[in-house]
């Protein structure tokens, strides 16, 4: 039998977008950089990298290797940290505290029986306590990017659900949610974040994610709501309704894939915004606790170090953050172009 017609399956929209993104050199490059950071974050989370960020491995403020002399190690005798140079014996007096000090020295010998060797220089330098800035920046990158990612997931989820409900159902649902949106947006973003941070008494990565996620969903809400308003009267949705699809099915199965590109772009934009907010919060001491490290807490330490002329922690943190944020912003723009259905290639 002769073939009368052939149905060619049209190309999947996501494949098309990915192909467009890949054809754009800026998109390809920024995607690569962002993926590289994500792999890094995964490796730190798995404990393969940056696990020893809290160990004092070098002398205080050990400079970066390329701007220091060749001698590379210094050995400190056992129990040295607790030793004391008393000035009193110089004058021929007996130190009244001597029994206490000798006891402390003996305890120190027990805790640190071997002489410890510290590095004089490190590739990225060391901080005030002799911790490796290279290890710290790995761990800090993981904390900041992880907080940004999870908070962006939370915010995108809340914004999408509320936006879909408001846009699709309209009427009082829309009035109520839109009113809530109006309330949240009438408080400037950082002030809102501060107010919520003041209310949550405990610090930590979880709290940070909660603060950023709960306050940052308004942008997603506005766009998703507008898209649902537009889509709910489109023919394909009406047809789905006529075929007996329930409201829930129409909202989540039929319309959602058609607005998912808006959501993806918003997610990527939120990621950058949240990372910047995390850095500010941690810098001010409202973010990660002292037992952890992030780009913001590193900048906080770096501020005091800079006055002493120790610039390396500031430099390394700034570069690590600038590369990621630039790549993410460029990727957001490239994604927007690649996913725009009006542009045909």
């Amino acid at each position: 039998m002769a073939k009368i017609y052939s149905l060619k399956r049209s190309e999947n929209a996501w494949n098309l977008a990915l192909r467009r993104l890949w054809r754009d050199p800026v998109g390809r490059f920024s995607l690569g950089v962002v993926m590289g950071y994500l792999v890094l974050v995964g490796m730190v989370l798995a404990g393969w990298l940056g696990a020893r960020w809290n160990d004092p491995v070098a002398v205080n403020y050990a400079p970066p290797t390329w701007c220091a002399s060749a001698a590379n190690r210094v050995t400190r005798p056992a129990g040295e940290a607790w030793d004391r140079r008393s000035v009193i014996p110089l004058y021929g007096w007996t130190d009244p505290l001597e029994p206490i000090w000798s006891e402390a020295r003996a305890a120190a010998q027990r805790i640190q029986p071997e002489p410890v060797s510290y590095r004089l220089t490190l590739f990225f330098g060391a901080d005030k306590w002799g911790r490796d800035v290279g290890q710290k920046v790995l761990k800090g990158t993981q904390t900041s990017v992880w907080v940004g990612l999870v908070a962006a997931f939370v915010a995108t989820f809340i914004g999408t659900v509320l936006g879909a409900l408001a846009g699709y159902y309209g009427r009082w649902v829309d009035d109520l949610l839109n009113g809530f949106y109006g309330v949240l947006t009438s408080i400037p973003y950082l002030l809102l974040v501060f107010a919520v941070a003041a209310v949550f008494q405990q610090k930590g990565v979880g709290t940070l994610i909660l603060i950023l996620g709960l306050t940052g969903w308004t942008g997603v809400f506005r766009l998703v709501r507008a898209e649902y308003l537009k889509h709910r009267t489109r023919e394909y949705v009406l047809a789905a309704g006529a075929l007996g699809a329930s409201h829930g099915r129409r909202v989540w199965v039929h319309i959602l894939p058609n607005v998912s590109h808006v959501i993806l772009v918003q997610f990527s934009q939120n990621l950058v915004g949240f990372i910047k907010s995390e850095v500010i919060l941690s810098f001010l001491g409202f973010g990660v606790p002292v037992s952890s490290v992030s780009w913001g807490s590193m900048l906080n330490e770096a501020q005091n170090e800079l006055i002493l002329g120790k610039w390396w922690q500031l430099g390394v943190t700034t570069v690590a953050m600038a590369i990621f944020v630039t790549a993410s912003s460029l990727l957001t723009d490239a994604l927007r172009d690649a996913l725009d259905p009006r542009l045909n290639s």
Partner: protein
Amino acid sequence: MSGLLFLVRRLGQALLTLLGVILLVFVLFNWVGGDPALILAGKMASAQDLANVRHQLGLDRPLWQQFLDFVGQVLRGDYGESWATHEPVSAIFRSRLGPSLTLLIPMLVLETLVAVAVALLVAALRGSWLDQGVRMVSTVAMSVSLLVYIIVGQYVFAYLWGWFPVKGWSDSVLTNLRVYALLPVLLGLFVSVAPSIRLYRSFILEEIDQDFVRTARAKGLSETRILFVHVLRNAAIPIVTNVLMGLPGLLTGAFLLERFFAIPGIGREIILAVERSDFPLIKAITVYVAMATLAVNLLGDLCYRWLDPRVRLE
């Protein structure tokens, strides 16, 4: 829709939103925030101390009564005393407003002028190396945390080179403007100008492609006249709205500058209040700033209707 009806409706909407803000702040601080008596009475407090503090703050009364109290406070503009310094909160707010405005008004004016000038230039030379260069530089500049600009700027210009005082503030507005606010304003300008340039460039480009520009060109008008008179006047509407809308954000946006340069403004006060868990102060500042935002938004809408006759017809 007639102007008066529009005004009444928008006013009603703004008041309703303000009520929502008051409710949100109340829920956050009186319900989510847990028991403030635990913070206030200190770590060594006995059960009797806690009960006393609760009674003093009126926390032992039902929630709806506490809410009505808070609404009354907002209406009277009297938020009680700060938990940390025992000054009246409204007095703190009033005394911190001046320094913030001393910093913000020059920043806003300079930023608008610079951003509009650069945006006009790069929009007129669209696609040229200058346009591409400005876009590239502003993308990279925006990716460095503003903290870094402030830290490095203060260190290099004030501490190393001594061009400006490292920090400080005086009682005279003129001295402040001439001496102390200079470096913060310049740094704030540098940090905030890049996103504005990008935004204004897109506003201007939208107008440059319109038919009336082609007509003006066909009439033989010079390019500068087209750009400065025809294009700029039309692009001014979104620009003015944007400047107005950005005003309340600036009020808190400069808080990092205020902290670094020890300027006794509202932003620094917020950070202090969060550090000290000074709930009455945070509540008051949040409500005040929300009021300012709503007022400015209303003003922006009215401006928009007044400047753009097309909006009135809808």
